[in-house]
């Protein structure tokens, strides 16, 4: 593990201001660029061919980045095949290429430690009883392991005495939830689910049951596309869950399999804040130059976690905007992002009008 990461994990996880983190991140990211340059041949060719060779970046914005889709088109790893412990894949519709993220045991450990560190920020130091807003069927069959299943399993590590709010058919399991709450005796607990599931399968199904979830801490993630279609904003999401269940501690997060373990966690103002070992740049969609705070663009995520694959600087296909928070808050840094959605897909017209139109 690079020393910069060790240092970043020592402090309160989301507390660093931009000026605190910049030098340390720069040094760590340069070190990772060099490491991957030495160990990953395709990455080296990209750095030599597109970034004019290996040079130490003088600013975070100069750190070379890979578009996230290159994790679909190339197998990028900085360790030998024998050292690969697990290959994570992204969610994707059938037939579409998926990202392949190669973790060795060291990176896997780093990633788990970093995630624990981040989650501790909102969950506290001891493991809490956990209510999963999903079904255990989602990860029971390893052959059918989806990104959703992997996400649920990954987060379950940070809770104990798990219960599942949904049946394998994704119907509400009222008995299981009642039993879970009974066992708590009013103690604190941890809830996790994908945003849309929390809304459509938990809020919609359980809201008439007068549940008291005021001791719960909900962490959710997974994109707003379906909720935006139903005109549900983050503010509404929070308000309705608060009104119906007394649930006040709600944390959305932004993360991706290509930077597994790095989560941008919801803090003051509904912004998503990078942990101390990560940062974000928003790039103008026309020039690819860094956009000023307040200006929307493509989100680039920087993280010190990826050691076994060159994912420390990734240009996502998500649009977002950086917002700067004035005033001091010892718990949270001074910059966060709002995610505005996916970059609209656009394909140039090919010559054939038959494929996909038959029948």
């Amino acid at each position, binding site marked *: 593990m690079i020393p910069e990461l060790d240092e970043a994990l020592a402090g309160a996880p989301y507390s660093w201001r931009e000026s605190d983190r910049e030098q340390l991140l720069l040094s760590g990211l340069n070190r990772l660029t060099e490491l991957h340059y030495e160990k990953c041949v395709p990455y080296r060719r990209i750095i030599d*061919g*597109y970034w004019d060779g290996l040079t130490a970046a003088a600013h975070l914005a100069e750190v070379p980045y890979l578009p996230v889709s*290159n994790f679909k088109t190339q197998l990028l790893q900085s360790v030998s095949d024998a050292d690969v412990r697990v290959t994570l894949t992204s969610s994707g519709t059938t037939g579409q290429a998926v990202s392949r993220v190669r973790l060795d045991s060291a990176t896997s450990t780093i990633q788990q430690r970093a995630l624990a560190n981040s989650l501790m920020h909102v969950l506290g130091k001891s493991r809490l009883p956990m209510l999963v807003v999903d079904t255990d069927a989602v990860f029971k069959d390893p052959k059918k392991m989806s990104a959703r299943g992997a996400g649920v399993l990954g987060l379950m590590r940070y809770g104990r005495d798990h219960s599942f709010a949904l049946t394998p058919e994704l119907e509400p399991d009222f008995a299981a939830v009642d039993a879970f709450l009974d066992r708590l005796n009013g103690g604190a607990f941890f809830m996790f689910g994908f945003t849309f599931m929390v809304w459509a399968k938990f809020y919609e199904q359980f809201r008439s049951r007068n549940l008291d979830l005021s001791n719960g801490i909900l962490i959710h993630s997974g994109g707003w596309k379906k909720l935006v279609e139903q005109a549900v904003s983050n503010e509404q999401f929070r308000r309705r869950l608060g009104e119906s269940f007394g649930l006040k501690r709600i944390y959305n997060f932004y993360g991706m399999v290509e930077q597994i373990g790095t989560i941008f966690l919801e803090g003051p103002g509904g912004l998503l804040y990078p942990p101390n070992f990560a940062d974000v740049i928003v790039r103008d969609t026309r020039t690819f130059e860094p956009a000023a705070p307040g200006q929307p663009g493509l989100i680039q995520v920087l993280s010190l976690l990826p050691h076994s694959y060159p994912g420390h600087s990734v240009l996502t296909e998500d649009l977002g905007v950086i917002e700067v928070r004035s005033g001091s808050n010892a718990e949270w840094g001074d910059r966060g992002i709002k995610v505005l959605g996916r*970059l609209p897909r656009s394909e*140039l017209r090919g*010559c054939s*009008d038959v494929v996909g139109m038959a029948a």
Partner: protein
Amino acid sequence: MISICSPVPRTIDASDFMDHVREMAKQPSQPFSDELVMLLGTISSELLRNPVMRALPQYVALGYWLRAAAVRALAEEGRSGFGPHEIAAARGLALHLPPSNVDTIFVYSWALSVLAGNANIVRLPATFSPAARTAVEIIVDALNNAGEENRHLFCSYPYGGDLERSLSSLCDLRIIWGGDAKVDAVSRVPIRPDGLSIGFSDRHSLALIAVPAYAQADDRIRDELATKLFNDAYWFDQMGCSSPRLLGWVGASSDLDALSKDLYRRLGGVIQSKSYAVEPAVAVSKLVLTNDLLAEGWARHGVRYSNELQVVDVAEPAVALEKHGGGGFFSQSRFATLADVAAIATRKLQTITHFGFDEDQLTSLARAIAGRGGYRIVPIGQALNFAPTWDGVPLLSHMTRRVSVHAK
């Protein structure tokens, strides 16, 4: 129900549609006649007069191509292809299946077949631009005014159904534009047993620049070249078969790097002045492709000039031709001589555009390729110019029949 655009736009049911087509099949006319030349000439004038069409260079080019004088010359050429004991006759009922990206092709394909005296059905792809719809309206108006409305049908119908089968069984000629998969799918449906089906399959194209010629060219010539290259590449988002994807610099030079950068700087200027822009997702996909070519060792160097212009130096031009970004993605490669270009030609190579070569050099190149590809060798700026011989197929001759007449 099937939507048809002529004589008036409406939807009709399959049986009425087939009745109409059966009537059409009975109505071929005399090839290369003055009436047909006049009809196309009228369409030319209307296209060039229409403000929507006039604003779009690809339709202006179409309008010029259809000028009465130009079409008359084509008719002359067509007639002269027949011997003293041969009578030119129409082939009969023609079905045109245009590509979905180059939305002027349907007019060229149709117009040549009109000149050949055929009755014509044109299937319009769902992805057609509003401009293409305007062109159809102009053509349909002209047909109605000329009393030709019952010999031509512009329509949309689904592929893969009974209607396609019935319709195809009546066709004497079928022209399929749109790549391997489409040619393969459409060809499974039989036309008349004595019919002729011509498929235009997947093709790609390249541009060649003679290094010494570019080095000696002055600013005016270089700017002109950049504009022509822009027209060739960007009119259809670089997705046309004849739009260049690879730029080959032919000949030795010590400062090729500076010369190529000079061209891309000028091309960038044209892109800006024409306000050409791609969606950011397309720009990102070009970066992904650049990285792929680098990562896999096909390319050595890549430069992003803008969202609309990305250039990679490739070590394997043949591979680069297969991997295409579109929307302003160029591979570039050095060739010592034109003979080295011939070595990478495959059957998929369609158009070679050029700058700075003489006729002898180009003829030698054509001979060296010898029909393994490279069916059109034309100056940079003419890549998209439609020609009655396409992919090595003389269309007018295939669109007609020859009747031999010997008195003794």
